[in-house]
């Protein structure tokens, strides 16, 4: 009976109408077509683009990538993004991991109250605190400073990561840590040696969600980073695009360079990406 009601079995029994595939393909074209045109254009010359704006390039102009790399300051941008993303992810995992541990395993008093507080505070719009935060950060020397941006991301992304990691920790039987505690292990040791190895999928999911958010984030970096040499790839691409609106081949090449790291990571770990991101939208069900 249980096997009978699984979705896979039913799908096999219900023949899929042809129009389902047609409609699904149309949606896929809508999703990927613009990116494909963008990729094509990154390999054309300016005159190719004028005569052939949509189709594939006739010959591949790889030099666009070399030119875009230097002119759009991509190496510095990607380096700054790498610093921001790795700093954000490392911090979020430590902050959210220990908070989740306190709530899920240490019996934090008033966990429900703390969770409600976190949810309310983390759903405050950034527009409410952006302006005073900007002047606070300017005063204490965190403006135009990568670490200043990382701290903001820690505060913005940790609450959701805490909820995510906590839900993974709750699935771990308490007997695991009890045994380690009886052997005299301290709480930090229990967390690192016993709980962490068992809930790493939760940590990986939280890392992917906050890493993607930090790499693509725009409002905070455009507000808090001013110097060209400190810009992450999001804002260095943006200022390049603003300055080069006529040379679309170079803009496409620079865009492809920015796109590539996240796209590759997503394709490698898509299942976990989708699971983590969709849990943001399933909080209510």
């Amino acid at each position, binding site marked *: 009976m249980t096997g009978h009601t699984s979705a896979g079995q039913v799908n096999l029994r219900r023949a899929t109408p042809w129009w389902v595939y047609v409609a699904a393909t149309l949606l896929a074209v809508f999703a990927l077509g613009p990116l494909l045109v963008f990729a094509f254009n990154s390999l054309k010359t300016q005159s190719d683009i004028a005569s052939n704006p949509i189709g594939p390039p006739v010959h591949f102009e790889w030099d666009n990538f070399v030119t875009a790399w230097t002119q759009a300051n991509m190496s510095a941008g990607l380096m700054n993004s790498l610093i921001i993303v790795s700093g954000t992810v490392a911090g979020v995992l430590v902050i959210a991991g220990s908070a989740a541990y306190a709530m899920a395993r240490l019996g934090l008093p008033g966990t429900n109250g703390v*969770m409600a507080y976190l949810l309310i505070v983390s759903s405050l719009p950034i527009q409410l605190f952006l302006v005073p935060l900007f002047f*606070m950060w300017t005063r204490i020397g965190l403006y135009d400073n990568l670490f200043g941006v990382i701290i903001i991301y820690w505060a913005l992304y940790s609450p959701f990561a805490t909820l995510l990691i906590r839900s993974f920790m709750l699935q771990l039987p308490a007997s695991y840590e009890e045994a380690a505690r009886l052997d005299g292990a301290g709480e930090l040791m229990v967390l690192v040696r016993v709980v962490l190895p068992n809930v790493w999928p939760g940590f990986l999911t939280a890392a992917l969600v906050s890493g993607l958010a930090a790499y693509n984030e725009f409002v905070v970096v455009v507000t808090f980073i001013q110097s060209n040499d400190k810009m992450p790839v999001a804002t260095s691409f943006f200022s390049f695009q603003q300055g080069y609106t006529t040379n679309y081949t170079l803009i496409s090449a620079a865009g492809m360079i920015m*796109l590539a790291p996240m*796209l590759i990571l*997503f394709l490698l770990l898509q299942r976990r990406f989708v699971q983590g991101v*969709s849990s943001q939208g399933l909080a209510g*069900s």
Partner: protein
Amino acid sequence: MAAASASPPASSATSSAVSARPAAVRSAARAPRTKGRSPAQQRRRLAWWFMCPLIVLNALVIVTPACLAVYYSFTDWTGLGPAHFIGLANYRKLFSDADFRNALLHNVYWTLFFLVVPMAMGLLGAYLLSRITRFQVLFRIAYFIPYTVASVVTAAVWQRLLSSDSGLGKVLGVNFLGDVHLSLLTVASINNWAWWGFLVVVFLTAMQGVNASLYEAAEIDGAGEWRKFVSITLPSIRPTFMFLGLMTIIWSFLAFDYIYILTQGGPAGSTDVLSTLQYRNAFSAQQAGYAAAIGVVMAMISAVVVIGYQTLRRRKGWDI
């Protein structure tokens, strides 16, 4: 759905839902442990130390500036120098400011667009994926890829495609981003391209939880595809649907990225929204106090939406 309806009364829309299932699990897990009183008490004291980094960061980055924003909203602060208390002057100015009314109206249009277009596309995509037996993973990847693309890149992709020099704009003789009647719709549509795939995966996850025997029963009764979708799928995923609707409304009043990147509120204020108006006041017009007041109003709009949702839930007993 059973887990959600069993949730204890809680203080915010999202917290009750999130804490519902784990609360039961946790109290069950804790019961035997509290017998050995001393180590458990020690652990609880230790728990606050583990919470410390999160709470300190929260206070520093969010709570302190949020409180400051409320204070500055009653002052004439420019962002530099001293702030003088001016009472409700900023808020009075808001209600007579034509730019504010213009921006607020655009946020309302933006909300309507995002409640209809991406939600419909998300439902359609998820439904199609749930019916597909071959290449389902490939289709799902395809739909989700735009969501992983940064807003600055998405903007560049579409600016070219719609360009009136050589893109679709030239073919159709339309200036998508330059025409004051089309600009807001264009920006919203570009944002939608990067957004609807997120809704697909969320709706798909919800649809996969629907009891398949309901469909079998409906088929025996001779129900067609549309009938099954309306009578079984939609009611079954209603909690997810309502939650995403709520979040859509909240996010729509905060929309910023695509508008700032593509048009900065122009042409002629035709895409100006509350967040771009606030940004201009704070960082170009040296009106930090006024910008803070706009931020407070935006936070209040979010609060009203959440409280309204909660009230409807309680009063009408919506099972969400």
